């Protein structure tokens, strides 16, 4: 299995302003689709998540 692990950190609260989860920085679409996404799609999500984290902390 080369699937990426879920980035969930058990915060699980959507931020209305950003549309991202306050814990893992995924959108609701990305969270809902996570377990049916293939490895490449998961890595894409994780890349977007990293970018959003930087944006949120900037």
């Amino acid at each position: 299995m080369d699937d990426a692990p879920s980035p969930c950190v058990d915060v699980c609260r959507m931020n209305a302003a950003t549309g991202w989860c306050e814990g893992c920085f995924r959108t609701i679409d990305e969270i809902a689709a996570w377990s049916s996404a293939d490895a490449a799609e998961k890595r894409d999500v994780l890349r977007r998540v990293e970018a959003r984290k930087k944006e949120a902390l900037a």
Partner: protein
Amino acid sequence: MIALPTSMRVFERGWLSSNNVFFTDDHRTALVDSGYATHAQQTHALVMQASGGRGLDLLVNTHLHSDHCGGNALLQTAFGCETRIPVSEARAVEAWDEDALTFSATGQTCERFGFTGTISPGDTLRLGALDWSVLGAPGHDPHSLMLYCAEERVLISADALWENGFGVIFPELEGDSGFAEQRAVLDLIATLDVRVVIPGHGAPFSDIAKALDIASSRIDYLRADPVRNAKNALKVLIVFKLMELRSMRVEALLTLVDQARAMRAAADMLSSDRPAIVRQYLGELEKSGVLTLTGDVIGIV
């Protein structure tokens, strides 16, 4: 990635919230387990997303631990959905009997909810245009159930089987039998033709033989010395509480361990000095990078 029938979808959550399995067919939408109370808004949003705004018609619980039924109240209010719970919990839920329900015993919270029906071992449920057999799965919790679809060879195992183990054997903390039941559940799963397991926590997996081997070794290990189960239970319950609160004072945790029956029972199996054993475990959890300790404030990493 593991392919599942198109009529079902797994919302892989974390540890504070169990996974949720969403089903849709021409007749209704359904959800198996609803996550933790503080995550209920996100569970609601996931249902709205996956249902295309159709909402939820039926909610089913594998068992009534707060990480599996904490979203029930909000989903019932939002959707007026039917709700089916394990039959042996019906009386406790009807009366909201705090002693019989596990929320206060584990130091956790769950908003009161109702139910419209029950499920029992031997029942067949129609979810996502597929037939699911209800199987008894005591061990982790005496009332716990699993769902098995023979046609698609899919097992929704709840906390009876994970890719790397299974849930705390709670009955054993308070002198009741649970190890023998858990062993029997593993033996039952081994008789089923299963292609995919959807566990209560973690990603769906397909190497069932390996998971059963790991679980089998683990039940032998716990059974050989029940203190091991108590140690795991106390650590899990402490971390769970920290996941919920994100930070708390050591004193508040010590009070919680005194008050919450399962935490207290686990601590008392381990030591005659409750505060000392809790502080020892906090130190171990800090060392393993799970928790932080800053003065008398505990945080979660």
